[in-house]
């Protein structure tokens, strides 16, 4: 290390592997530069187009890299700080798709709410870059940088709804609790660094595996793991560290809430899987049971709190807490199967939740999103109501939807490890949550609702496209999930050194 200092050599960088990141950041830069330097005002669709194109490009490059990785195996670059493996590429694709969907839904949203379009899209792209960096990080420092680019971008995105008092309040809460949880995570990282002597996940894994043979594992490491769990639990909105989520989801703009519930949650899970499950895999005994408990609490809290809500967005927020719990069911199994089931769940959930928040965005804000405003939606916009029904039933875990297969897979991974109590608890709680989803469905399809004087709902074509695509993905992967299951099975973090 010191030798490097005295005679500095820049580490070899495989630039092609980093192309997805460059494209996304480049998109953000292009948006900011063009819109601020142009003498004439640039129409809003320009920013949308750039962010969609950039994320589509990133996804395509990721698929190319995916082919390479399948043929010649995973590798690391930038002196082992960035891992290019199935896992990171899976999240690159997932995050890029999430950005495309959010950007398209956000297009109409920023226009309606008079939010600066270039900033919205640029922040979306930088936040997405952070998410991908988190998923690719082979080093705790890089992980931290990714986490912060994601978080800071999201703080501002949450604050963009600043004309409403709810929006300002949500931004403040999100910022304080986000920074608070980052500090916990960092403290955990510091302790892990202290006990293992390295910030590289590859080295950490080597050292903890050999430490595992020692008679007594270091107490500091256990405290470090505990703090990491707390930090990640905040980020994925797992109970009892979830209390920011309902307020923030409610107060932020609906496309942003969808982005938080999908991409931000996925990135946090990526970090959790990479750091805790893989790098600290030898210490499974220290984190598996706490994760199972977190999972159980999240599922219960998500279910019980969701049914007491009257605001659709808060319902979705609490259900998002519950879904974090279901994903944790797969994570705590600590097996390859469990991990791939968690990835499947994240993929399926991303589209269900972005679609749901897209519908919520169309309905719009009027002193909150009380469920009464959804009454008779089927009469006003039958296809929109149908799509929302699909998303809600998918979240409830009704068969023929990706949500069912996701639940099926995580429960299967828990059962395979003989963790029956959690499997039963998760399934029973899913019945309680179903009550909440059915309430919304029932309200939408109420035949006696009086909708004659309701204002006409404008569904922008881009939003309609996102909703339709999300429905298609939810149904297709619900009926023929095989290809996605295989995809997630290949997407395990490799943590290998060198290229």
């Amino acid at each position: 290390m010191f030798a490097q200092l005295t005679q500095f050599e820049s580490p070899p960088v495989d630039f092609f592997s980093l192309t997805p990141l460059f494209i996304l950041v480049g998109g953000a830069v292009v948006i900011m530069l063009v819109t601020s330097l142009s003498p004439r005002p640039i129409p809003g669709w320009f920013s949308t187009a750039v962010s969609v194109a950039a994320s589509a490009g990133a996804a395509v490059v990721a698929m190319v890299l995916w082919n390479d990785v399948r043929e010649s195996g995973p590798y690391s670059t930038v002196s082992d700080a960035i891992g290019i493996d199935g896992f990171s590429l899976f999240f690159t694709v997932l995050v890029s798709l999430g950005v495309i969907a959010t950007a398209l839904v956000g297009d109409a949203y920023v226009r309606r709410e008079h939010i600066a379009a270039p900033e919205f899209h640029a922040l979306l792209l930088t936040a997405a870059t952070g998410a991908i960096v988190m998923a690719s990080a082979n080093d705790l420092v890089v992980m931290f940088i990714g986490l912060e680019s994601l978080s800071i971008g999201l703080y501002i995105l949450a604050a963009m709804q600043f004309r409403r008092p709810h929006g300002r309040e949500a931004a403040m809460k999100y910022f304080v609790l986000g920074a608070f949880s980052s500090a916990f995570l960092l403290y955990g990282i510091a302790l892990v660094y202290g006990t293992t002597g390295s910030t590289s996940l590859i080295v950490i894994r080597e050292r903890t595996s050999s430490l595992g043979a020692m008679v007594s594992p270091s107490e500091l490491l256990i405290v470090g793991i505990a703090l990491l769990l707390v930090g990640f639990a905040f980020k994925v909105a797992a109970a009892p560290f979830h209390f920011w989520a309902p307020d923030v989801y409610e107060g932020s703009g609906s496309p942003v809430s969808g982005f938080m519930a999908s991409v931000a949650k996925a990135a946090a899970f990526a970090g959790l899987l990479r750091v805790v499950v893989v790098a600290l895999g030898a210490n499974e005994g220290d984190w598996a049971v706490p994760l199972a408990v977190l999972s159980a609490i999240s599922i219960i809290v998500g279910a019980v709190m969701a049914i007491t809500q009257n605001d659709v967005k808060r319902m979705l927020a609490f259900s998002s807490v519950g879904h974090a719990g279901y994903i944790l069911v797969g994570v705590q199994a600590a097996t390859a199967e469990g991990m791939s089931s968690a990835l499947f769940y994240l993929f399926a959930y991303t589209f269900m939740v972005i679609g749901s928040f897209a519908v919520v965005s169309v309905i719009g804000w009027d002193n909150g999103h009380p469920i009464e405003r959804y009454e008779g939606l089927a009469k006003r916009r039958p296809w929109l109501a149908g799509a929302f029904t699909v998303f809600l039933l998918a979240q409830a875990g009704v068969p023929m939807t990706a949500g069912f297969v996701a639940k099926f897979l995580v429960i299967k991974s828990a059962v395979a490890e003989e963790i029956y109590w959690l499997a039963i608890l998760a399934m029973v709680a899913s019945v309680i949550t179903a009550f909440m989803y059915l309430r919304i469905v029932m309200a939408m399809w109420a035949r006696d609702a009086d909708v004659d004087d309701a204002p006409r709902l404008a569904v922008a074509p881009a939003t309609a496209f996102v909703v339709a695509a999300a429905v298609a993905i939810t149904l297709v992967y619900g009926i023929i999930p095989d290809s996605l299951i295989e995809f997630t099975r290949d997407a395990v973090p490799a943590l290998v050194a060198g290229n």
Partner: protein
Amino acid sequence: MTMFASSATSSMPILTWLILLPAVGAALIAILPKSMPGLHRQLGVLFSGGAAGLSIYVATQFDTHSSGFQFETIQEWIPTLGISWHVGVDGISLWLVVLTGLIFPIVLAGIDPHGDEKSYTAWMLMLQAGSFGAFLALDLFMFFVFFEIVLVPMYMLISGWGYADRKYAATKFFLYTMFGSALMLVAMLTLVSLSAGDGGLTFDLVALAERQALGVNTARWLFLAFAFAFAIKVPVAPIHTWLPDAHTQAPTGGSVILAAVMLKLGTYGLLRFGLYLFPEASVHFAPLLVTVGVIGIIYGAIVATVQGDLKRLVAYSSVAHMGFIVLGTFAFTTQGISGSVLQMVNHGVSTGALFILVGMLYERRKTRAIDELSGIQKAAPIFAAVFTVSMLSSVGLPGLNGFAGEFLILIGSFETRRWWTVVAAAGVILAALYLLWAYQRVFHGEPTDADLETPEMRGSEALLMLPFIAAMVFLGVYPQPLLERIEPSVDALVTHLEEHTDYERPEDVVIVPSDEPDSSDEHVDESESEEEDH
């Protein structure tokens, strides 16, 4: 898996088409514009009628002497998890499939949903596709998918087209059934994961049933989870409370389908996924289930007696009837189980008819309260006559269909479950009591002016009732075509029980033993067929 694929007998996947045809119809109707009134329903009748035709074709081509699965199709579905699209029909499912095939077009053609025919028809067709799927599935995952997916259209039908309290009833129906399936899913995954041997994971019903890889205690727990899910669906007391609400609040068409088809998923599930998958546990818990069944018979009958709402009364009579089916199922004799299977069909016909009649009565009088109706026979003698026949069929009068099933169940169970059978027989008398009493109050007595103005049955309504009455009479006097297809499979199931447990069926039950060639590839065993004379 390949060894099962080779047993596929049909070149054309007719059973797959049976599931797909209504589903395609539903999709087609969903995309047709609303502006074409009448067309949706006609298309619905066409598609469900097409499925009915296919189901009848299956019944006619069904090999009477075979106890195994016929018309089998195996297609890989999710190979990474060992899940396949495996459909097949045997004597146990055959008539339920035919019933599902026939009742939907009748309901669609004959019962006016009162509003939004397009969605109503689409949901009905989806329900038909789902029910076919559940009855035909020979893969646990596939069964579970269909078992649960049928909740959605039924939920929509109740909540969309039902009566005043429909939202509560629909939600209750959905959540009750989902709760049962939640536990069943965990049990199913446990079964699959513990049975995974050298061949890897498989969700194939036949493979799992033949493997019997579980320990005794595990199998018992899993059986309880499965049985609980099915018991909710049947339903057996005390977890039946969703049924009266769902039936009463559902639109007439929904009630008919609920009674005729969806309740059968529970009893069919007990046979297919209880007895067949967990023989030892079934034998172990048989006293429990038989007791629950008998409680259902008596409880349903008593509660039906005190109902003031005619539709609720019929709903509770369903609880009693389903209790008989559970009793017969866990009698473990060929007659008992055959009687149960036959009774599933009978119950569908007679209770379905009663629900339609109550619906007609409601349309005429806007009430179902027994107190507010009286002497309707004077105003509508034909209506009363049709009601009488349906009611007597439900009571189990000899010569009508209810008798054949109940009689077989009672003989079959008497050998193995003597005292339960005695109590159950009292249920038959109670059934006569509450149905006749209700009939007497509604159709006889002193009519008021309103009663005298009750319109008589119209020609179209009579046409709707005709197939039901015909079925009641036909199945009552000549159930043989059904029984000779049911019995080989049932017999093989009882043999399966004997092979895997220390249970032995009583010898003297066999009335006329005869050797029949058995072409099944999983149970090469002697099979008996019984002659029924009454």
